């Protein structure tokens, strides 16, 4: 394993220390292990708290700031945070208007956030949970833990965060978050697996001409192994799956996220975005906004995911609203 670290056991806390040093706008509680806006709690504002395993940076800590999250709880690498952490963050940012938990649909995340929400309720904090489950590589059936939460998390956090920033009520903020999630579908390919500091070797090994289709962001293998094909074909296959799960009529508008999983260079992501734009243009779908880059990552995994979210005028307005976080910033 080759990484810029000191001790595998200290990676998360040391990276948090670096985040704290780099961003005076953020308050990092290294004891309780959460990242919050320095100006939290903001009285009367609905607060957004998210979290999950570390290794997906900039998600979630990099999305804390004005117009997006009020706090993020990073767990150990690929391990969901513990209820204590989530409760501490929830209490730290609650401004009296309630707190929205944005939770990616993984068994661990769901259970830990649920325990934290129960504890917060015991302390009189109103918590609404928005579950993100956009990854259509997984069938949503009683036979699985359900679709995973991946790229759409960024859209949920941005759009619901903007509504909270402008004074949305708890129910409204949660509702738009759920709408964004329901309007989103994602699919990912991996060329290589990431390596966690603790395990020290890649989550899986792939021959030089094979890829994993339908991977998540935790180094788990995907639904199936395929031959490496030209980007053009991979994009078409991914969009077939996405658009089957989330049919789009001609003239509908979307936000597209072409997301790198950490080890894929930007030049390839832009090439992919070009292919996505071509296919959606053929289908008469209008890309109203887009984002190309490494946002919801899986350590150093070479891979990419495509997220397509059907949007309303209101969602576009909230997407365009100012945001000021380490990982996403415009208008401020």
């Amino acid at each position, binding site marked *: 394993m080759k990484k810029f670290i000191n001790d595998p056991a200290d990676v998360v806390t040391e990276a948090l220390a670096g985040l704290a040093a780099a961003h005076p706008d953020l308050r990092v509680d290294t004891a309780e292990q959460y990242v919050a806006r320095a100006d939290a709690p903001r009285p009367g504002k609905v607060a957004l708290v998210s979290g999950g*395993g570390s290794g997906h940076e900039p998600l979630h800590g990099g999305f804390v700031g004005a117009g997006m999250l009020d706090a993020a709880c990073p*767990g*150990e*690498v*690929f*391990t*969901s*945070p*513990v*209820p*204590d952490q989530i409760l501490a963050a929830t209490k730290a940012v609650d401004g009296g208007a309630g707190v929205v938990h944005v939770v990616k649909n*993984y*068994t*661990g995340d769901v*259970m*830990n956030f649920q*325990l934290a929400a129960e504890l917060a309720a015991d302390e009189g904090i109103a918590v609404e949970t928005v579950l993100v489950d956009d990854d259509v*590589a*997984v069938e949503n059936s*009683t*036979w*699985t*833990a359900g679709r*995973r939460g991946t790229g759409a998390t960024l859209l949920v956090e941005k759009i619901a965060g903007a509504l909270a920033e402008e004074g949305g009520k708890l129910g409204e903020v949660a509702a738009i978050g759920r709408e964004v999630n329901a309007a989103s579908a994602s699919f990912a390919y991996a060329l290589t697996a990431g390596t*966690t500091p*603790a*395990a020290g*070797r890649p*989550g*899986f090994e792939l021959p030089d001409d094979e890829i994993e289709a339908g991977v*998540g962001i*935790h*180094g*788990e*293998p*995907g*639904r*199936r192994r395929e031959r490496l094909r030209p980007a053009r074909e991979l994009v078409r296959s991914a969009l077939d799956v996405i658009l089957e799960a989330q049919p789009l009529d001609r003239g509908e508008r979307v936000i597209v996220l072409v997301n790198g999983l950490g080890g894929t260079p930007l030049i390839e992501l832009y090439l992919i975005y070009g292919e996505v734009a071509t296919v959606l243009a053929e289908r008469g779908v209008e890309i109203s906004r887009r984002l190309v880059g490494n946002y919801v990552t899986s350590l150093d995994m070479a891979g990419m995911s495509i997220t397509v979210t059907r949007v309303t005028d209101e969602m576009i307005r909230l997407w365009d609203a100012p945001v000021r976080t380490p990982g996403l910033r415009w208008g401020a």
Partner: protein
Amino acid sequence: MDVALATAWLRAAAGSVTAEADLLTRLDAAIGDGDHGVNMRRGFTAVVTVLDGTEFTAVGDVFVRAGATLISKVGGASGPLYGSAFRAFGKALPPGARADLPGLAGALHAGLEAVRKLGGAQPGDKTMVDAYQPALTAFEEAVAGGAALPEAAAGAARAAGDGARATTSLTARKGRASYLGERSAGHQDPGATSTWLIFQALADVTAP
């Protein structure tokens, strides 16, 4: 079971998940995200620290504290599941310094119920339930048959081991491994394996 045996069991379990952390992580890397060994080691190391620093009078409290510690320290799926199991187990034990065999059996049952309630897994879903359920059945049958703790614990450990091994052929329907669909078959479930280690630790510390 008294406070001394309770702490001995948890210490033995801690030793065992620490010794086998690599195995657990490797199993989890194959069908999950490769952190189960690290998670269990971190959690049980914290449990040992708590045990070191606390005087217990009631045997149930040992497990309630251990469970709360696992919930606070592990994260992931296994943290809340094992944490809730130990908490429920401790709470279901009869009050006081010692628990008898039927009390232990009932508490083991309460622990499994907690796992099933929180995680929703059925036997056959390729989870820790597939080791826990047969271990519980074996323990209950041994107790019903008049066996003493060492024998009941040994039977439970054997059944847990068989159950863990039998997860290999299953297709996962809960937890991360379910994302793999049929590709999850052919790999032993990490959580079932750690459940076996915990039952084996009880068998070891009670062995005559």
